[in-house]
């Protein structure tokens, strides 16, 4: 059987300290309830500089400069052990500073909803002219608005302010006078999600050297909803992102499943390619402003910086089997079904062991599991523990119950088959998907043979069901055998058949 492959990835972070101060829900709720609170006053003292964010080891892992196994070697807490040689650009993407990102929001804005003050805009234009991926887009920035205009949009027309280094530098306008689905707040969230998705997809195209015209379909899997009052989640981020990236031959659609969405999207992309519907499918998502500084109160209490200061984004290209890149085993899929139940044991069984059983595999046959890869530097001080480690312990414990490993081997299992978490707590961003870039390396030039990507989601948050959700899929080193299109047999088999036929002909000739 010929499976689709992971052909490339893009991973980006955007440092957004002022967005965190003003649009993270923890901060905005506090501002509404207690505008003079000590917490709000303490924010500046607990906010990292761009250089600190670049030097932060988990961020370097996210953009492809520091393998998770290398991250493990760095002393914790990581925020106290910044890397001296850290780079803005990595093998998978980059860490963009806030001012350039506001420019990218303007570039990504199709309805003149982002207003930037003219002086600020000129500075941003200069920086983006030097950006290899956006130098051709700077004309879309326009010339900007006067400070008085920006203030008028905010004071008279309900626009949401954009701050940089504490100063007002622009705003995001509401897109309708009375429509509650097109308020400035919602447009702001959606434009951040769109623009960070654009950044990730631009890097994917750049890193893979893919002809952008060959992208057939885009599946967007963030956690925002775009639409108007008559269809609040109408969509479609996917096509909007594809448009900015210049994928003129693509259409697409949005997939929503809370944090599980990226893995759902990966499986659906693989299915579309395997079925021959499309050749090149991109899975993409930008990040969430609401979750910025989500655990800020705990971080301030622990006298540490607010580590949730970056918006995340990623893009993955799923293509037809090329005989080189890791295959997506569409026959080894795990699903948390309606009838699965909600106990952790039922969840882990459905997501981990059910797909393994289909392939006659043991828990220890998967070299690395990518679970909820939340950065423990962020979650532990907030009382949520080490999320990936807890997942690995559960997988290992299930292995012990199945007789795949001895109980005494549990701690070794957690290290050998697990990884330290490095992703920002942006919901869908840490969920299984952060490892796909390294999996592509580990399953080609590296030493691994099988990895599993696991996505889980808390559906109950939307109050439509009490259910939990999750899906999983196995990625595997490519055997190098590729089926000829439409035949169901590999090229190698065809060659062997031709050789056999030639031998028969030769033998016949010899006889004659």
């Amino acid at each position, binding site marked *: 059987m010929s499976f689709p492959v992971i052909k490339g990835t893009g991973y980006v972070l955007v440092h957004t300290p002022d967005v965190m101060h003003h649009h993270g829900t923890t901060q905005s709720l506090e501002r509404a309830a207690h505008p003079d609170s000590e917490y709000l006053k303490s924010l500046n003292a607990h906010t990292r500089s761009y250089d600190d964010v670049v030097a932060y080891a988990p961020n370097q892992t996210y953009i492809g400069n520091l393998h998770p196994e290398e991250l493990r070697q760095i002393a914790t807490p990581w925020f106290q052990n910044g890397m001296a040689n850290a780079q803005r650009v990595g093998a998978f993407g980059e860490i963009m500073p806030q001012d350039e990102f506001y420019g990218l929001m303007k570039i990504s804005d199709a309805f003149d909803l982002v207003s930037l003050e003219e002086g600020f805009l000129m500075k941003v234009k200069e920086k983006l002219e030097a950006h290899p991926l956006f130098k051709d887009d700077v004309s879309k920035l326009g010339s900007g608005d006067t400070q008085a205009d920006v203030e008028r949009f905010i004071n008279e027309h309900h626009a949401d302010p954009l701050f940089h280094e504490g100063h007002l530098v622009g705003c995001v306008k509401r897109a309708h006078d009375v429509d509650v689905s097109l308020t400035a707040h919602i447009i702001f969230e959606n434009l951040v999600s769109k623009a960070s998705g654009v950044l990730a997809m631009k890097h994917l195209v750049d890193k893979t050297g893919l002809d952008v015209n060959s992208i057939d379909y885009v599946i967007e899997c963030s956690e925002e909803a775009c639409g108007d009052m008559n269809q609040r989640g109408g969509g479609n981020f996917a096509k909007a992102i594809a448009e900015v990236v210049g994928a003129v031959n693509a259409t697409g659609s949005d997939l929503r499943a809370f944090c599980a969405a990226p893995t759902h999207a990966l499986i659906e992309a693989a299915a579309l390619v395997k079925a021959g519907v499309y050749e090149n499918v991109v899975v993409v998502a930008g990040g969430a402003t609401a979750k910025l500084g989500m655990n800020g109160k705990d971080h301030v209490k622990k006298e540490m910086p607010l580590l949730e200061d970056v918006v995340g984004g990623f893009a993955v290209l799923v293509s037809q089997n090329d005989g080189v890149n890791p295959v997506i085993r569409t026959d080894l899929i795990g699903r948390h079904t309606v009838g699965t*139940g909600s*106990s*952790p*044991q*039922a969840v*882990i069984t459905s997501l981990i062991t059910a797909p393994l059983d289909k392939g006659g595999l043991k828990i220890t046959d998967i070299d690395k599991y990518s679970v909820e890869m939340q950065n423990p530097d962020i979650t532990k001080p907030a*009382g949520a*523990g080490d999320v990936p480690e*807890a997942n690995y*312990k*559960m997988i290992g*414990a*299930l292995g*012990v*119950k199945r007789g795949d490993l001895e*109980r005494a081997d*549990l701690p070794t299992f957690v290290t050998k088959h697990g990884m330290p978490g490095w992703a920002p707590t942006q919901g869908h961003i840490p969920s299984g998907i952060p490892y796909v870039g390294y999996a592509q390396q580990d399953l080609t030039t590296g030493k691994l043979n099988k990895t599993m990507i696991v996505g889980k989601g808390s559906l109950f948050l939307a109050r439509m069901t009490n259910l939990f959700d999750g899906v999983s899929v196995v990625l595997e080193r490519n055997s190098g055998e590729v089926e000829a299109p439409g035949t169901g047999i590999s090229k190698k088999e065809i060659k062997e058949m031709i050789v056999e036929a030639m031998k028969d002909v030769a033998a016949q000739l010899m006889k004659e």
Partner: protein
Amino acid sequence: MDLENQNRVKTLTEKHGAENMLILLGAAEAESAGLAAETVTNGDPTFAGPLAGVQLGLKVYHAVEPEFKDAVNPDVYDEQIGMMEMVLDVDGIVEEMNNIRSEFCKY
């Protein structure tokens, strides 16, 4: 404990009477189990939810405590909780739950 769950506990207690209530927890850490247990006995320690200052004193147990384990079918327990029993700090959770119950439980 999240505000919605506090609200549900409060409403159910008003409807059925505190003496008829039993709260079963599944928290993964002793500390978070203790906070939830404190909330339904002595009131919300964060003073944020509907149970702030409300001392219900309800019976409260964690799913890995022997009182619960011995009361249910061992096969079902093993199937549903056996794995987590291996992962969690059971002794720490039991100690924390006993502390909260001895201090605040009224039933």
